[in-house]
């Protein structure tokens, strides 16, 4: 299945949630942010090359604690990337690896729309603040138009008791709150997903619950 992790607003932790959710689902995480890549990359081909027809999705995969399909970091690469090929790239990752989690960029442009259009499930990431919720609402509308069922909302970096009922009513999906924890923040950079690095921690339990919601949506 293809899971789109989206959220409208930038900086709410979509990449962190996507990376850790992919670890919990034993999935490939695809860095879909064509203009501002976040997930670890090395010198091999990237999603930019895949979308420009220079490499296959399989060639661009990068092994690690979580298998990543990284994205290039150059503007020229972003310009050369044909976003309409993204659907096929995601489908081919799904065919070979079972589950692909897509880290969608902020905003509401085509590079968010294409993953949502091919996704079997969408997870929205929001910060527990009103202004982040407004963007999440817009993304939810887009997901609805593109037929991507919203399976869960991840409230990220929660410090105080979050307004879970309000968020659930506003977005119409079950809410999981990811506690603010430095291990989550560093997980992408250090390539240490919390479900592996700290399996007994609260954040690990949240990502496991999130993965459970995604899994059960498939059945």
């Amino acid at each position, binding site marked *: 299945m293809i899971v789109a992790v989206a959220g409208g607003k930038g900086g709410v932790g979509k990449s962190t949630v996507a990376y850790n959710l992919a670890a919990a689902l034993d999935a490939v995480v695809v860095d879909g942010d064509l203009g501002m890549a976040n997930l670890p990359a090395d010198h091999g081909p990237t999603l930019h090359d895949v979308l420009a027809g220079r490499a296959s999705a399989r060639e661009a995969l990068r092994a690690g604690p979580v298998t990543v399909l990284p994205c290039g970091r150059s503007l020229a690469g972003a310009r050369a990337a044909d976003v309409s090929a993204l659907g096929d790239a995601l489908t081919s990752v799904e065919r070979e690896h079972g589950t692909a989690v897509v880290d969608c960029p902020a905003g509401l442009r*085509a590079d968010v729309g294409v993953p949502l259009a091919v996704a079997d499930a969408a997870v929205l990431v929001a910060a527990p603040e009103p202004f982040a919720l407004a963007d999440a609402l817009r993304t939810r509308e887009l997901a609805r138009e593109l037929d991507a069922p919203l399976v869960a909302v991840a409230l990220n970096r929660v410090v105080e008791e979050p307004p879970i009922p309000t968020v659930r009513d506003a977005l119409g999906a079950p809410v999981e709150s990811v506690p603010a924890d430095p291990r989550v923040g560093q997980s992408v950079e250090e390539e240490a997903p919390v479900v592996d690095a700290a399996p007994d921690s609260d954040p690990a339990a949240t990502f496991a619950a999130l993965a459970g919601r995604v899994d059960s949506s498939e059945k």
Partner: protein
Amino acid sequence: MDLDWTQQSAAGVSLVAARLRNRRATDRRVRLENRLDGPVFPPRRNGVPEAGWDRGGVTTVVPAGGTVALGYACPAPESTPPVAVEAVEPAADRGGETDPATAVRKLGDHRPPRDVLDRCCDGTESDESVVAETSTRPRKTTSSTDTHEPLTDYRTRIETAEALGAVGVEGATDLLATNDGLVGVEVLAESLEADATRLRALAAAAETLADRAEAATPPTQSLRRLS
């Protein structure tokens, strides 16, 4: 199903406009086929053809009692009729379209504008190396400013000289330090003279060119008659 069409040819390409009117009380799906001797260039949005278009024509739904206007280009000479209704059938509800092409068509372009690339990168060929080696490879900023702003170097030297004259002794010491000391300033003084000569020559050349630009009149009228 009523079909009105017009066609217009320019530079080897025919532009075909069609209007479909549905007099029935139900929505009808219509297949419109191009009859000109060439492929259809469909209308596009964000680079993706509009829904329903292919190389042979278009399939669209005309609402009950309504009209739909369509148009396309075809690299072929005009012929009559340019377009014909191939099939009409009741329009069953196909639901919303949710394929990636629809998403690309509807939503904004993700790509950074081209002029951003011209300003910050060497070109598309080297994008991978730019990404991988940003820290190790110095950017070629000076050469690019040279080509964009031919007077920058002169302006910098003149401004430095003016600043040296304007500041007091303390400030001058700092400026001396950043301009290679006393030797640097002596070199600067020499190059200022050369700069003045070159700038005056440039101004004179520019003046002459401007006069010639005003005087020159290409024979547009006669050329237009010939072509």
